């Protein structure tokens, strides 16, 4: 393939048709189209819902829109956000994508530091998948926020708020990771070798800071004791992310490297990683639920979330993958299947964390029982609001963002190649 070079980077000369209309891109377009439908649904709810305030009835009583708004006010729910569960599937997917993507980048840095040559060779592909997932997470959260007012983040910043810290974090983190990928791909070997170690150490530092800020964001939510009382939340985020990240690396390796001679060695390392981090995560889960506020712990362990917790999270993210790869095995299908389970189980874990945090209603204010949300409802210790179909479509569509970003990088730089000359 013909190439051209810019700033030490070799670009593939790829035809228009091959660049835009290969199988991966077509699948990506389809998924992003689903996200587009979801965004339309959400924006219609958010910005164009029929809603009226108490003054409207006096100011313009004959307005036909007012009649619809009053009917909805009495018989239905207006808008997409509920008071009971303000953070929903958007946040679960944002967490999953960002943490897992950062986890992949973090694990590659750790592997390089520990001199795992085979991971070094595959670093470009892994890191691109990681950064693509970070972008997918940011895409999800961007659809959740009211972007029309985002300029106030700069005009009136509250720099102590966890949410605000995200902005400078990603402004630093993303260029930094892209620079790391540049160093892996560049032909300027002397520069790459010189910067390798400091960049590696900085990379690990930036990753830890990222998880710390994420943990701060959750632990500032005074009312949600699941989030404030999970012990060493930063550590939990890192460990649980590593489990799903290894799953992503396993599936990625299966799809991209399975016909290469280095594949068994790569899968062997991933297998050991899965075993180790699953064990640490399992130990953490046991200790965590002894510490967490009993109202939340009971809802998750013995209440309405128990099936999701034990069958969706514990079984898929930990038990099945552990037993699949526990014995030293040459069956790459088992490792791939274990990877798939950790990916799905990891998502269930994030979903559980977000919805679980909101599960115990705020209406237990006086310690003598739960208040009813309105006269027609039954008081309950449990809150759950099913995600809107628009949210589900956006979450599915975010996978399309990962595919598109990854494929653009791959088309230009051939990142699936295992590189021996890594710095």
């Amino acid at each position: 393939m013909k190439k051209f070079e810019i700033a030490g980077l070799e670009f593939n000369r790829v035809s228009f048709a091959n660049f835009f209309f290969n199988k991966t891109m077509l699948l990506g377009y389809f998924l992003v189209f689903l996200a587009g439908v979801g965004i339309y649904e959400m924006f219609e709810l958010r910005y164009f819902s029929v809603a009226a305030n108490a003054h409207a009835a006096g100011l313009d009583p004959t307005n036909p829109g007012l009649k619809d708004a009053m009917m909805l006010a009495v018989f239905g729910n207006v808008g997409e956000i509920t008071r009971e569960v303000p953070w929903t599937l958007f946040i679960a997917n944002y967490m999953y994508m960002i943490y897992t993507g950062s986890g992949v980048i973090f694990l590659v840095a750790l592997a390089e530091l520990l001199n795992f040559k085979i991971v070094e060779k595959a670093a470009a592909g892994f890191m691109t998948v990681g950064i693509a997932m970070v972008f997918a997470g940011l895409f999800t959260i961007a659809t959740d926020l009211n972007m029309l007012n985002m300029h106030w983040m700069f005009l009136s910043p509250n720099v102590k708020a966890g949410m605000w810290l995200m902005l400078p974090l990603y402004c630093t983190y993303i260029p930094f990771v892209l620079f790391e990928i540049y160093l892996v791909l560049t032909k300027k070997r002397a520069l790459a070798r010189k910067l390798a170690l400091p960049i590696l150490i900085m990379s690990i530092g930036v990753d830890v800071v990222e998880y710390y800020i994420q943990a701060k964001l959750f632990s500032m939510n005074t009312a949600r004791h699941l989030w404030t009382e999970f012990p060493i939340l930063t550590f939990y985020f890192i460990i649980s992310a590593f489990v799903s990240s290894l799953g992503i690396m396993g599936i990625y390796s299966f799809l991209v490297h399975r016909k290469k001679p280095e594949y068994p060695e790569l899968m062997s390392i991933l297998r050991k990683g899965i075993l180790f981090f699953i064990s640490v995560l399992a130990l953490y889960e046991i200790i965590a639920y002894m510490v967490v506020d009993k109202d939340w712990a009971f809802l998750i362990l013995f209440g309405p979330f128990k099936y999701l917790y034990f069958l969706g999270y514990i079984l898929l993210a930990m038990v099945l993958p552990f037993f699949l790869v526990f014995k030293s095995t040459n069956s790459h299908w088992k490792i791939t299947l274990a990877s798939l389970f950790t990916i799905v189980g990891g998502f269930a874990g994030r979903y559980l964390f977000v919805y679980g945090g909101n599960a115990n209603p705020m209406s237990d204010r006086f310690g003598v029982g739960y208040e009813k949300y309105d006269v027609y409802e039954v008081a309950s210790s449990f809150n759950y609001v099913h995600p809107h179909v628009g949210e589900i479509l956006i979450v599915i569509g975010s996978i399309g963002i990962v595919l598109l970003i990854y494929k653009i990088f791959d088309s230009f730089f051939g990142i699936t190649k295992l590189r021996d000359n890594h710095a």
Partner: protein
Amino acid sequence: MCKHAQHFGYDKEGVIMNYAMALDYQNCINCKACETACKEENGVQLGVHKQRIWVGIVEGTIFGKPYVNLYPSQCNHCMNAPCVSVCPTNASYYAPGGIVKVDAHKCILCKGCMEACPYDARFIDDTTVAVDKCTFCDHRIEEYGTTACQATCPTKVRLFGDLNDENSDLVKLLKKERFFFQKERSGTLPKLFYIVPKDEAYFRQSVSHDTKIYTWETFKSHFMAKSANTRSK
């Protein structure tokens, strides 16, 4: 003067004001006049889940005997408000008089404040696409000296006033009565004072055994000292 004094309004003599409300909830008859008055006065969005103030209803039994507790409630305008500290754009802020308010134009809908509030006092106003909450009717304090909910209550459940004015009706009431707070352990230093019911049966069914009961003196020594610490940080 404390550096946070700008959060608070001043009266005509230049004294810092700190608005609060006492609720003699034993008197509540669940007529919902306060909810209606609030919606009318402030133009709150229509809908049962879109409320700045509400009457909380708790049902239960003691040895098979059923009871219903009514707790009129709203934003506690906490002195250490978590909703203010988590807001990334300062859309949630302390207005004069220590009133916690939301600037709808600055709200980016991150919902962090809704998650952080232990009292579930915030909701999304779909007409402005921003978080909305009680403002203690601050637009009418100067003219009428009180809130719409207090003005309309037929059984005088609510009493609005300035905690820093020893001669206010609020402080006079608090000096006479015992009171408690919602979710005091959250450390938010709330400013809704729930007056302990005089009726013994209602007291037992509506106050938890581990609820801390205050008098004005104990409140001042514990609570206000904490508040001063929080603000000086």
